[in-house]
């Protein structure tokens, strides 16, 4: 290299805008609502956002390696319904059911990944199929109304917290979220994580460099599945049991990831930005709520965001593209 490398904080391309938007929203929240005049308000926001952030982190792994995971919303619903049915409100069942839920998430992820890589079905289709299968299975099993109940010790992850010195009371969901985020960052900095991004960019080059492309892709889906299970455990505790608990979460997670500047189709983006995207989305909904905007508008807002974020990624970052005259401009040549 000919240039001396001076150290400065490095943000992956596309990270800066979402952090800026997030900062603006957090400040705006303080002005909009009295709840945000002290840290607990933000802690509550973080707690609310935790499941979506976990889903966004999982979705990030899949998107950055070149795929989509549309099955996570239905997976969350299925997990919660299964949990209620198997626990039957008995604390003695909590531990093994949690293990089973994580295992089921892993299994669904593995199936998504294996069908995508071995049967060569595009992940968009595989996970859409999985969405429908899980939806149908849940409906068949519950007949529309889930049975059973979660136990108090299960719900503690979504509702309860831990008292720590210095920081005070921390919700469990925030602790879990931070632990997952740190693990995800470390993973993405390591060789396997970097190779995963390279798979999304050019899987040929990875395969021909001796990499195991299929294995990496399956890993991404498996992580997404496990994180969906984790999100379901938090959501179940937080929001309770219903057959609609996970509805639409897959698109919300994709929106969050795209808002974080992660390139659809893979190859670029940071996991921190994806997580920040999820937090931004949640903060935005909270703000709209405080401003009295109808909750019914949420999905419309989400739709605008996803289109705008992708358009920004395609055009905004590259001023040359905007300035370049298009062929056929009706401007006569001066002769």
């Amino acid at each position, binding site marked *: *290299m*000919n*240039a001396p*490398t001076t150290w400065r904080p*490095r943000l992956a*391309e596309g990270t800066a805008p979402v952090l800026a938007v997030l900062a603006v929203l957090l400040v705006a929240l303080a002005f909009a609502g009295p709840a945000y005049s002290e840290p607990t308000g933000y802690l509550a926001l973080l707690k609310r956002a935790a499941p979506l952030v976990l889903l966004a982190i999982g979705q990030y792994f899949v998107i950055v390696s070149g795929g989509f995971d549309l099955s996570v919303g239905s997976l969350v619903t299925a997990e919660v319904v299964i949990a209620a049915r198997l626990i039957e409100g008995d604390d003695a069942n909590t531990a093994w059911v949690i293990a089973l839920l994580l295992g089921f998430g892993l299994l669904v992820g593995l199936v998504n990944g294996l069908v995508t890589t071995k049967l060569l079905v595009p992940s968009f289709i595989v996970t859409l199929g999985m969405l429908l299968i899980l939806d149908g299975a849940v409906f068949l099993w519950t007949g529309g109304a889930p049975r059973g109940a979660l136990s108090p010790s299960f719900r503690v992850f979504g509702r309860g917290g831990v008292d720590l010195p210095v920081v005070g009371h921390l919700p469990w969901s925030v602790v879990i979220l931070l632990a997952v985020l740190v693990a995800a960052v470390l993973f993405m*900095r*390591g*060789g*396997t994580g*970097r*190779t995963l*991004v*390279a798979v999304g*960019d*050019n899987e*040929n*080059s*990875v*395969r*021909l*460099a*001796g*990499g*195991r492309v299929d294995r990496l892709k399956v890993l991404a889906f498996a992580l997404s599945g496990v994180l969906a299970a984790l999100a379901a455990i938090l959501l179940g505790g937080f929001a309770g049991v219903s057959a609609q608990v996970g509805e639409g979460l897959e698109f919300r997670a994709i929106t969050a990831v795209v808002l974080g500047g992660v*390139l659809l189709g893979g*190859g*670029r983006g940071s996991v921190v930005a994806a997580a920040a995207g999820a937090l931004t989305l949640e903060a935005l909904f909270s703000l709209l709520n405080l401003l009295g905007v109808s909750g019914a508008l949420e999905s419309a807002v989400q739709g605008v965001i996803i289109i705008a974020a992708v358009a920004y990624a395609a055009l905004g970052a590259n001023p040359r593209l905007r300035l370049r*005259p298009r*062929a*056929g*401009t009706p*401007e*006569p*040549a*001066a*002769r």
Partner: protein
Amino acid sequence: MTVDGDVVVRLTGITKSFLGVPVLRGVDLELRAGEVHALMGENGAGKSTLLKVLAGVHRPDSGRIEVEGEPVVFATPRDAQEAGIAIIHQEFNLLEHRTVAENVHLGREPVRRGQVDRRKMEADTKSLLDWLGEEGIDPAETVTRLSVAQKQVVEIVKALSTDARVLAMDEPTAALADHEVELLYDLVDRLRARGIAILYVSHRMREVFDLSKRITVLKDGAFVTCALTRELTSDQLVRHMVGRSLDALYPDRASADDLGDVRLALRGAGNGRVRGITFEVRAGEIVGIAGLQGSGRSAIARAIWGVEPFTAGTVEVDGVERRITDPRAAVRLGIGYVTEDRKGEGLALRQSIRDNALLVRRAALTGGAGRRKSDLGELLKSVAVVARGEHQEVRYLSGGNQQKVVLAKWLAVGPRVLVVDEPTRGIDVGAKQAVHRLLRDLARNGVAILMISSELPELIGMSDRILVVHEGAIAGELPAGTGEEAVMGLATGHTRGEVA
């Protein structure tokens, strides 16, 4: 009709800057009817920017453009097209599933009674093809069914159908197979004879000397010289382009002392595309593989790498028989492969220099991630990558620097055998020399190198011995410093050689 030798287009004092960086600084260019004018220069010398100015894509900051003596301003590519200037790009802009005639008339279809007049379209195309002496192409044929060379003819006919008088051809032989290059020569000759002014942009020295009457050389965006081709030697031309002479182009070959143990040995190896391949490569030597395109020379390399494995015979690495069934197996045995398809197979373009250079280490070798952080810098320095820093995305690098990153990727795992396929394709003269020197240094440090190149001077200049492949088999082996004729003789099946 212009008289032979009339100046059709004249550019004077063209300057152009992007974001304050001057890319062209006062370039002159004169294109005459019936003349082939070569434009040469290293990558980054400003050739493509000049082409884009000529095509009306970029508007120059200053300078004059004259068409037949009249000053003009090209505001859009369409203006340039209407002034009779057409650019034939390296990548063709053809609709593969439409016919030749439909492509030629795309967007300007003749209409009769509200319907596209297919008969007139085909007749017009036919007469242009005849005029060019390309009677072999049927105007009603679908473009997908044409060869690459024929598609190029269609592009040219498309340009001619808009009454182009100036054809600028950007690396026209880059996509062509060796035998098709001859056809292109004929075609250029016929275009010239019919009074078309041709601007021929190419890296390939020999083509330029064979075809052009005049050569304009650019260096760092500045005009260096415009001279008659017959008054230039290739040595002078290289000096104009880089300020170095041709003598220094290739590093010294290996001496007998440099050679070590046999690193790679193939015995009777074959698959669907090649058969009976037997040779050895020793530590410290560079063995060249010559052959026409499609002769199987790349198939041998890809079989060694495990992409399309051998199904017959044996492969020994360091004296041990191995079955290499996928690239991972090859990589883990210490075999590196610099692919000819740099962008498709060699690099992940949106990843950083660092991530690409570490790709093999991370992807194929377990437990190697991020290990010994410091030596990556050393490695990039040793291959002399010029970049803003190791976090720059490789797509922003020039072809030469990209190729150095590909090499670094393999050097990062310390290969014992390195197979290089067209290692200098599409990179400029300066980077080419750097790659050559690097390969020789590697050999000196005990790597066994197998080198494939369709550029014969390079292959002959670099190799310690040359294997010539013809129709899927080794036709013969030639010693260092063989003449091009001997290689071509074997490669075309003209002569039979002794198989080592």
